[in-house]
């Protein structure tokens, strides 16, 4: 700063200091100090408000019921107890049974894994076919697929129930997996089709010249190339299927209820006193997997949103 003062005497040091303190080499211009502070205040407050429910969940889940009854939502726990967590996992009551949400966890895993794998495989296959092999009516198919991604499930529920019942799959694990795969197909197909649209067509043509057929090109060329989009698709599907409620409610039958359905049962169908700490623990347990996926995947999660949003 003194060098500048030497070079340009007459320019008040204060003026220079003020300008240089607010200095940010931003193409849109320097932001005055007070505005910058206001910006941080706003963002900080907003962040706090977004984090509040998470804090409440965690805090409530480790408080004993006596503290909760005091009605202080935001207070830090005086006595920390992990009993609610154990109870939520192993002995919380969902309607008739009191086996905790652990069974739901297993069910969710059993549902999510095959559904994700199948819907991604099929989506990749379809996307690949639509992208490179351009069957007749591909354009129309595309539009229908796009619409299919948006359709409310309710409109297809009853026919699907009947169809599954006829196949003897209603209320079974394969039945649920089938439905999830079915409903995941449009989005996955679109996702992969858009991705493959970015692959140079020359690559495909070179493979054909080399003698590759439909399956060979898919398995040996396209699939290995698709790793980034497979990661995105996995994140999207795992999150969506784990968090699903409706399909699990309708198609999973009594034996295969996923965690979300069991969670709702635990909390909303209780007789007697509601154990809020157990409830919150159960909620956290149910959200643990998707939250973990979210935190680990970071940028990929956002890419999933962008990819899903730019459907078509």
């Amino acid at each position, binding site marked *: 700063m003194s060098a500048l003062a030497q*070079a340009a005497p007459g320019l008040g040091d204060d003026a220079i200091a003020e*300008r*240089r303190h607010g*200095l940010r*080499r931003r193409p849109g*211009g320097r932001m005055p100090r007070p505005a910058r502070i206001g910006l941080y205040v706003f963002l900080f407050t907003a962040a706090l408000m977004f984090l509040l429910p998470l804090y409440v969940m965690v805090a409530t889940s480790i408080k004993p019921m006596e503290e909760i009854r005091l009605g202080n939502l935001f207070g830090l726990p005086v006595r920390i107890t992990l009993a609610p967590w154990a109870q939520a996992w192993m002995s919380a009551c969902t309607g008739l049974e009191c086996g905790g949400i652990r069974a739901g966890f297993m069910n969710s895993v059993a549902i999510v894994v095959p559904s994700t794998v199948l819907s991604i495989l099929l989506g990749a296959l379809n996307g690949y076919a639509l992208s490179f092999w351009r069957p007749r009516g591909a354009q129309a198919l595309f539009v229908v697929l796009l619409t299919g991604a948006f359709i409310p499930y309710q409109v297809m529920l009853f026919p699907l129930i009947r169809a599954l019942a006829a196949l003897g799959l209603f209320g079974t694990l394969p039945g649920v997996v089938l439905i999830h795969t079915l409903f995941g197909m449009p989005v996955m197909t679109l996702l992969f089709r858009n991705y493959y649209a970015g692959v140079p067509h020359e690559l495909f043509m070179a493979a054909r010249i080399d003698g590759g057929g439909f399956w060979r090109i898919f398995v040996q060329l396209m699939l290995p190339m698709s790793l980034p989009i497979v990661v995105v698709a996995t994140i999207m599907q795992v999150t969506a299927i784990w968090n699903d409620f409706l399909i699990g409610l309708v198609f999973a039958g009594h034996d295969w209820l996923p965690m979300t359905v069991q969670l709702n049962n635990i909390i909303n169908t209780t007789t007697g006193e509601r154990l809020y700490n157990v409830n919150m623990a159960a909620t956290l347990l149910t959200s643990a997997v998707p939250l973990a996926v979210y935190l680990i995947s970071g940028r990929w999660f956002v890419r999933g949103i962008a990819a899903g949003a730019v459907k078509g």
Partner: protein
Amino acid sequence: MNVSIKQLAVRMGANTVLSDLDLDVVAGEFLVLLGPSGCGKSTLLHAIAGLIDTDAGSVHIGGRDVTWADPKDRAIGMVFQSYALYPTMNVERNMSFGLRVAGLPKAEIARRVERASKMLQLDPLLARKPAQLSGGQRQRVAIGRALVREAQVFLFDEPLSNLDAKLRTELRRELKALHRDLGATMIYVTHDQVEAMTLATRVAVMCAGRIQQIGTPGEVYARPANMFVAGFLGSPSMNFIEGEIDGTAATLGLRPEHIALHPADGALPAAQVTLVEAMGAHEVVWLDLEGHRLAAIAPAAGVHAIGDRVGVQMMLARASVFDPVSQERIERSAVSFRRRPR
């Protein structure tokens, strides 16, 4: 309006991009800042524009100290590589937006827009959006945006780099004509030496944050101040031959057009042709002269073929001499230059 820069320093983080830079731009001239990527030419332009703040030194435009002035108060207009036209506004609004924000009366805005539009032949395009314009049309709109601000100094940040070769040559000529018609001061940044040579009244060759040489295109081409400038201008670039003059080590710089090829007789130094590039109007002949790799320009006649032996005549009167260590130009006659064999 002239532009005067004194002892300018710009630091980006830990990097010192420009230090102690002086530059005087004469009013009405077309100054080209030429140099490779990373040499600081864009930074210098942005500092003149006021888009980045400086760490030391001063910028004066038209005699006014604008070192801490906002870009909008510097009477400048700027054309960017991507033209940066407001995509959701049509041409007329693109040009008038700044004036409307400044609160100028409608009649005045209309007058200025009309004048600029006439000068740049934008009248039939006024209702179009940027997406409906060709590259050349967009450039004119970008210039028009600067014109309506009654800018005295026009800054260009590599505006032709995004275009294909044919369009580039068209727009280069348009720019030159525009400069002639407007008579405004123009500062133009590019890495393309052909653009620099054809457009500039003066060229400032930059490297690593310093101006290596500033002068007319002819000066900079014929009498480069150091080996960097010598090698940067001209295509194919200048040949450098190590040797000595009267006992002192020296590097000879000889342009390909100053080497004449004759049939090999005993009198001239003999070289072997290693490659011939046919350019239509002339040929570039690559030679191996006792281990030195040289390029020579010969009239296109299909005379030379790979493997030929030719006699090399060097026009030493047009050559430059450089100190091999400092790479600076030495004012010595090259007549008594002796090659050092490789």
